[in-house]
């Protein structure tokens, strides 16, 4: 048996008319199904308790030990000299941050903390780099805005019928 004959013998036989009708019928069947898109800005997945999002900074708790800058793997935290302050304080480059949360673990006074905010939008790269005072201000603002949010929170479930299903939670 030559190669070609072998190939021809193993080819599945397809009815040219029925196969097309079957394909179209399958398309129509799927047309009636519901989409499984998460309608994101209106709806949001519920975040776990210790979700590591944007790092928030409390200037008043900080003692300027610079441990956070030492431990930060991508060097997103740098120490700055603030005019009128004796100690050096951490500044934050959100573009470099990998949200590992090591800085919040090592901080002796809990001046750094993780927040569930993960979708803050910056229009320019430069605007993602904060000095200590700016970081304090934006942290306060983000936490306040997050508390005001009124999005439907859902949990994703894998469903055999639909694929993905979203169950609302309180």
């Amino acid at each position: 048996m030559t190669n070609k004959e072998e190939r021809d013998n193993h080819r599945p036989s397809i009815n040219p008319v029925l196969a097309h009708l079957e394909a179209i019928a399958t398309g129509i069947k799927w047309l009636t199904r519901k989409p499984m898109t998460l309608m994101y800005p209106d709806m949001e997945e519920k975040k776990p308790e210790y979700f590591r999002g944007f790092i928030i900074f409390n200037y008043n708790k900080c003692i300027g030990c610079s441990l956070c800058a030492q431990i930060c793997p991508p060097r997103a935290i740098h120490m700055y000299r603030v005019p009128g302050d004796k100690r050096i304080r951490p500044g934050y480059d959100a573009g470099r941050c990998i949200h590992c949360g090591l800085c919040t673990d090592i901080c002796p006074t809990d001046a750094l903390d993780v927040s569930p905010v993960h979708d803050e939008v910056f229009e320019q790269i430069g605007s993602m780099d904060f000095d200590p005072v700016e970081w304090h201000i934006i942290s306060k603002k983000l936490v306040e805005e997050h508390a005001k949010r009124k999005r439907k929170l859902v949990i994703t479930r894998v469903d055999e019928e639909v694929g993905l299903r979203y169950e609302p939670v309180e």
Partner: protein
Amino acid sequence: MVLVELAKILHVPVWALRGFLAPLVYPGLAVLLGTVLFLIWAERKMAARVQQRVGPYYVSPKLHGALQLIADGARFALQEIIVHIETDRLMFILGPILTFTFLTLPFTVLPGGPGIYGFRSDFSMVIVYALLTLSPITVILMGWASSNKFAMIGGGREALLTVSGEITLALAMLSVAAMYGTLDFVTAVEKQMHTGIIGLVSNPIAALLFFLAMLLLTDRVPFDIVLGEQEIVQGPYTEYSGVLYALTMAIDYVKLYALSLAFTLLFLGGWAPFTTPLLGAISVYIKSLIVMLFSVFLRAVYGRMKLDQAMNFFWARLFPLGFVALALGVFVHVIYA
């Protein structure tokens, strides 16, 4: 009749009013634009549904994104038309305009209902076919004038596919003409109403050929080889922007509308079972809308054929089948007589 009364009020002859209203209102431009907007939205929505996505939504959440196309249109209208330095300036700008104009001309003879037509001719099928055949010439010229590799390849593909698609369309139309013994749409519909058997039943092969040729000529999947987004960006329309791009995008849908209207008249019984102008017009429109929706729905089902596969399919399979359809048409004509 309303038209006669209106002509009396306006002091113009009835034929002039017909010739004015048919290409501009129904079945022509006004209805056409609404249909095209709806059709593109429906196409995107249906493809999205099959893939379990949502499709266009946030432009108007309450209408499920139906105003997306109007937003797109506004954007195109405000966009700068970029004509780059290597183009053949005149042909580049005239191309889409000419093509669109050619494609709106068939609506002068395509009847949209009983007594709703621009003018009635004994050769209206031939006229529609001839006017639809004009547009590929300008599309090829657009591809050449763009001075772009993708546009050039797209133009070449358009030339190849047009030749193979139009011969099939011509054979399908010819077999229908042989079946009804006429080249006039109105007479063809009256014949179907008289015998009570629609063309789809009496000559299914011609209907299939007509439908497949329609898909090919209007760049619908699986024959969207001219536009082939993943291969040649937008085919002959690659270099266009702004209003001209909107026109090039509309070209295929206008063609689809004209050909679906012809399909409805020849194979689906036209305005049957109604005989009054209003109900008849609605019947024709809904039937052709269903044909159009089905042909854009195929985007979600099929992949794209290769150029050689499509050519082989049309010349080796459908072209001989066309002669079978012609023989069947002649046979049915004898039975009818």
